[in-house]
Every structure is written in structure tokens, then in C-alpha cells.
């Protein structure tokens, strides 16, 4: 084989690597890990890695739902409030003597109900998602305060607290296991099912989807129901970890989740995005904050850096869009 040919081959391999959609976020993530590890070898210790994994697991659960919503061209601002509601509802029933399983179920149902209400109003009354879910952001948080009367709900049963405080599956926290299983399920849904394909179609061109006879309303409502349930699940896990139902839990969480999903390459214009990207985006966000802590950079700078990362991600998306010549 001539040198020229091997050169072409190498070029092809490099091109193919860059064709993997998630590469854009993977490279900075790996670079970040290497740099931080060089500055402070404590970074990749078991304890710190576990802590990053755990916070990533928590963020990933609603981020999965958010990815689907953004791909479909929608938006959900009520994630943090519904997260709070799920945790508080479960805690409320637990302290009133309801067994663990039904309490958790009721917590999840409260989230699903919020999601369905979001979806139905958005779809049937044609209210912009940003307005309806902003309304839900206040309504769900309001319900949290009504239920808690502004004070944490505790004590919670030991068996419930054990879910996130003690139980480990193969040494991995429950929340992380949950997130991994859910990520796999949603990965399969988006990649291999008719339902997933329809979500991409709706976000890519809703008019075309309508002409193709896709039941847009039902799919959109189901997506809001999914993200509501996932947010509540996250809140339930967190109340187990904290051992109480906190009225302020999850405040501002939705924006972190959206940022992570967008950094992971999902387009805010709909139609594009992958769950693999979201997983890396979430891990990137959590590594970023952990690394700044470990490098003793003031916590105040963290928001600044995350914001900058978000802006860069959106700029990259925009450049990609203009390159594919969409006018």
C-alpha cells in the first residue's frame, strides 16, 4: 500500500470519528478530566468519582425527558417544581402512615398529572409550551408550599431512607442505577421505535408530521407526562437521600437540566439530538462543577463557566445549521 493510500485511510478514520454526533462534547469532557487530574490528583479518587456519578445520575433522570421534549420542539420549565412536588407528596404520605410503595407511586403520579395537564393545555388549547410550563412552575411550587406549609416534612421511615442512603447495587448508588436503566430504555425508544421516529418528525417539521397522519397531540401529551413522571421520580429519590421532604428542593433545577441537554448537542429548534449526547452533557456539567471545587475555584465562578459553556454549545449548533445550508 502506498503512503498516499494510508494517508487517505487515516483521513477517513478521522472523518468518521468526527461524524459521531457526540464527539463535539466528548473531546472537551476528556480534556477537562485530564487537565483537572493533572492539577489535582485527588480528582479521580473513588469518593469523588462516586460523587460526580451520583449528581450526574440525579440530573440525568429529568434530562432524558427534557431531551425528548426538546427534540419534539417543546419545552418544560416546570421540572424543578415538579421534582419538589414529587418528593414532598411522597414524604407527606409516608409521614401519614401510608406504606412506602403506594407513597412513592402517589409521588410519581403527582408528577405525571402535572405533565399531562401541561401537555393537554399546550396541545388542545394551543398555548405556547414556555407559558404553560411557566405557569406549572409556579403552580407545582405553590402546591409544595401548601403541602409543607413551608417547613421540611420528616422524619421519614428508615426503610425509605435506605433506598438512596444505603442501598448500593454493585457499589453504585440507586439513583445512578435508575438513571442508567432509564437512559438505556430511552436510547432504544428514540433509536429503534416508531414512537421515537415520530418524535423526531414532529420536531423536524410539525406540518409535515401532520400531513403524514402522525398523531401529534397524543405524542406531545405523552412526552410531557414522561418528563413530569421522571422529574417526580428524581424528587422522590432526593427526599430519600435527604431523609425529608424539602419545600425548596429542585428550585432552578430545570435550567440546569436544559443547559446540560443543550450542551449535549440537542437542538433547541427541535428535530435533532441524541440521548448519548445528553448523557455526556450531564456528566460534563457535573465534572465541570466538581473540578472547579477541587481546583479551589470560587463557587461563584461556576455559574459563569456553565453559562459560557452553554452559549458555546448553542453557537456550535447554529454554525452546524448554517453549514447544512438551511435558509
Amino acid at each position: 500500500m502506498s503512503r498516499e493510500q494510508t494517508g487517505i485511510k487515516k483521513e477517513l478514520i478521522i472523518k468518521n470519528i468526527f461524524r459521531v454526533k457526540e464527539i463535539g462534547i466528548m473531546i472537551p469532557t476528556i480534556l477537562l478530566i485530564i487537565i483537572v487530574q493533572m492539577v489535582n490528583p485527588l480528582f479521580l479518587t473513588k469518593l469523588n468519582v462516586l460523587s460526580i456519578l451520583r449528581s450526574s445520575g440525579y440530573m440525568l433522570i429529568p434530562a432524558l425527558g427534557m431531551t425528548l421534549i426538546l427534540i419534539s420542539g417543546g419545552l418544560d420549565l416546570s421540572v424543578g417544581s415538579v421534582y419538589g412536588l414529587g418528593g414532598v407528596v411522597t414524604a407527606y404520605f409516608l409521614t401519614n402512615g401510608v406504606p412506602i410503595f403506594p407513597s412513592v407511586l402517589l409521588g410519581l403520579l403527582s408528577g405525571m398529572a402535572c405533565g399531562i395537564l401541561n401537555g393537554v393545555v399546550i396541545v388542545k388549547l394551543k398555548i405556547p409550551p414556555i407559558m404553560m410550563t411557566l405557569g406549572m412552575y409556579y403552580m407545582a411550587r405553590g402546591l409544595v408550599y401548601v403541602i409543607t406549609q413551608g417547613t421540611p416534612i420528616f422524619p421519614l421511615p428508615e426503610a425509605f431512607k435506605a433506598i438512596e442512603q444505603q442501598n448500593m447495587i454493585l457499589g453504585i448508588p440507586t439513583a445512578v442505577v435508575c438513571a442508567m436503566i432509564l437512559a438505556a430504555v430511552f436510547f432504544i425508544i428514540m433509536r429503534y421505535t416508531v414512537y421515537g421516529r415520530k418524535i423526531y418528525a414532529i420536531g423536524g417539521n410539525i406540518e409535515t408530521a401532520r400531513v403524514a397522519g402522525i398523531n401529534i397531540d397524543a405524542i406531545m401529551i405523552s412526552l410531557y407526562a414522561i418528563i413530569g413522571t421522571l422529574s417526580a421520580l428524581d424528587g422522590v429519590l432526593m427526599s430519600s437521600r435527604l431523609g425529608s421532604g424539602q419545600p425548596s428542593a429542585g428550585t432552578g433545577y430545570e435550567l440546569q437540566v436544559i443547559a446540560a441537554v443543550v450542551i449535549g448537542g440537542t437542538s433547541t429548534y427541535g428535530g435533532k439530538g441524541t440521548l448519548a449526547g445528553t448523557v455526556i452533557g450531564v456528566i460534563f456539567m457535573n465534572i465541570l462543577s466538581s473540578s472547579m471545587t477541587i481546583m479551589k475555584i470560587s463557587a461563584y465562578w461556576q455559574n459563569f463557566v456553565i453559562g459560557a459553556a452553554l452559549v458555546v454549545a448553542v453557537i456550535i449548533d447554529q454554525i452546524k445549521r448554517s453549514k447544512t445550508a438551511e435558509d
Partner: protein
Amino acid sequence: MQEKEIVLSVNHICKSFYDNQVLENVSIALKKGEILAILGENGAGKSTLMKIVSGIYPAGSYTGTIEVQGKEKTFRNPRDAQNAGIAMIYQEINLELDLTVAENIFVGHIPKTPRGMVDWKRMKKEAEAVLKTLGIELDVTMLVRNLSASIQQLICIARSLILNPHVLILDEPTAALTESETKFLVDILRKLQGEGISCIYISHKLEEVFHISDRVVVLRDGTCISEYSGPEYDSEQIVEDIIGRKMEKMYPSVPKTIGEEVLRVEDFTVPHPYNKKVNIVDHVSFSVRAGEVLGLAGLVGAGRSETLRAVYGIMKKKAGCIFLDGKELAMPRGKTASGYGISLLNEDRKRDGYVKSMNVRQNLTLSYLDKLKKGPFIDKKKEKELAEKYFKMLHIKAPSLDAGILSLSGGNQQKVLLGKCIITNPRVLLLDEPTRGVDVGAKSEIYRVIADLAAGGMSIVIVSSELPELYALCDRFVVLSNGRVSGELEKEEASQVKIMNLSCKQTTGRNREEIRG
């Protein structure tokens, strides 16, 4: 008339998009106080010419010169053209619905007080004055949203009058207006003419054009074909000039037999999306038989696309029923007819044709997904096989099935979309402008597919603004004018001239009854 000075002249204008020549050596002169109509089919170059004259296509993007009152001018943007006294009024009413009449009239030229604040008093007074010259008295502090379409159209004119233009360009100004509203507009143009303002008037409605214009110029394929002076016109000659082209040898003839009636549409009525008082489709009925290709002829704005969209169920209708094989379809609201063996190819690929973020394969199988189910999963093998079959059958030129739809040429994109429609093996195929923006090669391939499908027994309804194409492809014609059926022609009795004449016929309720009876 001859001695009157020339206010505007365009000389030897040529313009092309990529390698497609749209205007070729066009020269037109407009005299003071004259109403000049420019006629031509879609794609003849009328709008392109007007966009050059009004500065939307900047100097340098075309060759040739523009002279205003004898002086050569270069327009880098619409503002330059406005300053030179040329005002353009667009087809779509582009007002800010939630601003007042006065603000809309002065938008972009809001008068200011010496301190730099908005001079509301002056604005109000001048707005009232300019409306008065149009013969309307109106509270200029009203919101535009609450006004009728014709008044809104007049506000567009008023907006251009405050710039004291010498030339007013109107592009299809009556598209959304009723007959009496049109008359009012015509009166106003006459009044402006009396004040020495010249008009360039673009309209598809021939009778209206003959009624109003002093002179007519016919454009075809980017060149000036002929010129006629009024007030008497030979309408048949003009129609022939507009159509022109000889039959091209791109239309295949496939032997076929026409069978029983498959689809019957009765009394479809659809309200105009912008002006609820007007019905854009008004009691339209037609039927198609198995293996038959029906042409839904008519001008732009006659309600052809809207008829197809309403039948398919993506546009709300006021009234009307669909019969499939003689049985009435009870289509639930918000559902499309795709579940009943009816497919629709939309006219605008970008708006509701392809999904731009998807590849060729995903676009092809989009409307067939539910049939590709294996449990909840997509049967990828079946999907690939099916996509490949249509990819080959339609001769789609693309690197692979996984190529993004945007990387294809317009013609190949259109073939993908046609494939999407027929992959479901429908009984009735509704095609809205199936060859718009498509190169000649892809066109003839699309014609062949249409002929083959009809020979296979499919019922096909075509809407096309290219009359020669429609005439060659169809077995029968239903002609629409102003949302109503103005006539029905079998192939043997039809000619392009007859179709055009019916298209331009101003239907009234009375002659609609005659046609039906």
C-alpha cells in the same frame, strides 16, 4: 398619450438564479399617469422584475439599468427605490395588526418633534389627510386588526403615498378582496392616476386587468412577448401570448382504461384564512374515476390548493362531504384522509414537504411508519427494502438512502416526497404543483411516474400553474375561478385557451347554477 413624459424605464434587464435565466433583456417604459399591467404565467418573471424595480434585488445582482425621470439610478435596497419615488405594495398585506392605523401608515418614517419624541399630533393629522385623498374617513387611532381586508389593503396604499411616489407597484392587490372591494380599489387607482401617479399593476384576473389598464405587457419565460394598448383588448390573443409554448415531447402516453368513480367531493366550502368573510373555496364539487387523471385548473388564488388541503383534512372546511366508492367518509375533525387511502403531495416542499433533519430513507417512510411496526419497533430491514424499492423506481439521485434530504437537488427532493405519498399505495393521489422548482429531467421522470400510476388504476388529482403540463397530463379538467367551479372540460373538447378563458371568467352565483344544472 405619446407626448407624456416617461417616469420610469427599465432597460435590458437580465437576471439569473444560478444557471436559470429568469429575465432576459427586458425593457419597459412607464409614462406619467399611466396604468400599466404586466401579465404572465407563474414563473414568467413578473415578480422578479418588480423586485428589481423596487430595490429588493440590489443593483449588481442583475444587469441592465433603471432610469427614473430620465436619470439613471442604482437601488441598493428598497429604501433607495422609495427615495426615488417608487413604492411597492405587496401581495400579502404586511401590516402590524396591533398598531394603530396612523402608526402603520408612518412605519419607518415616524415624524419626530424637535426633542426626538414621536410627533403624535402631526402623525395623526397627516395620516387622516392621506386617507382622505383615498376617499376614506377613518379613525386613525384604531387598531388595524379590527379593520376589514379591503381597508387594510388601502392602508398599505396610504403608507406608500406618504412618500409622494411617482410610481406605485401593486402585486396581486385584489387576491384577498371581494368583488365590491375590488371595485372600490379600482376607483381609487383611477383617482391617483388623475393626480399624475403612474401604476404598475400585476394581476392574474384578466377581466380586471382589461378594465383598469391603459396598456398591457405580456412576459413569458423571462422575455417581453407582446404589448397592447387599451382600452379594447383582444383577450384571446393575449391568452395565447401568455401560454405560448408548444407542447413539449416530455409527456409519456401509457395505455390505460378508466374505471368506476372512486372519489367524489361535494359542495366543499373553505373560508379564506385571512378574510373570514370570503370563501376561498365556494361549493366546489368534482369526482375522479379509477385510472383517471383529473386536472384542477385555475389561477393562483382560485382555491385549488385549498380544495386539495381541505379534502385531505389539513385545512378547516365550512361544509362539504367526501364519498369514497359511493360511501360517505366520516372523517373525524383533525384527522387526515391518509387512513382512507388518500395521499397528498403539498406544493411547498420546505413548509410541509420534507423533514429537513431526516435522511432520504426516513423521509420516504414517514407516512408508512405504522405499517412498519414490529411490536413497538421499526422493522429496519423492511424499511430499508421498501425505501430501496422506491428509491430505484423513482430514479432518485442521491449518494445513498442515508443522505440528508437537504443535500439533494430540488428535483430529487420532490421525487422523495412523491415516493412518500405513493409508498402507502393510496387509491387517490392529490398532487399540488408536483413539478414546482424542479429541473426538466426530473420533471419528465415525475410525468412518467404519474402516467404509470394512473395506468395501474390510481385516481389522481393534479393542481399545476403550468398550463401546458396540466393540459398534457390530465384526462379531464375542472376549472376553478374565485373559489367556484367555472367549468368542466373533457380532454377532447379542452384546449389551453379554453381552460385559460374559464380560469379568468368572473363567476357569479348565477352562472354557477347554470353550470350545475
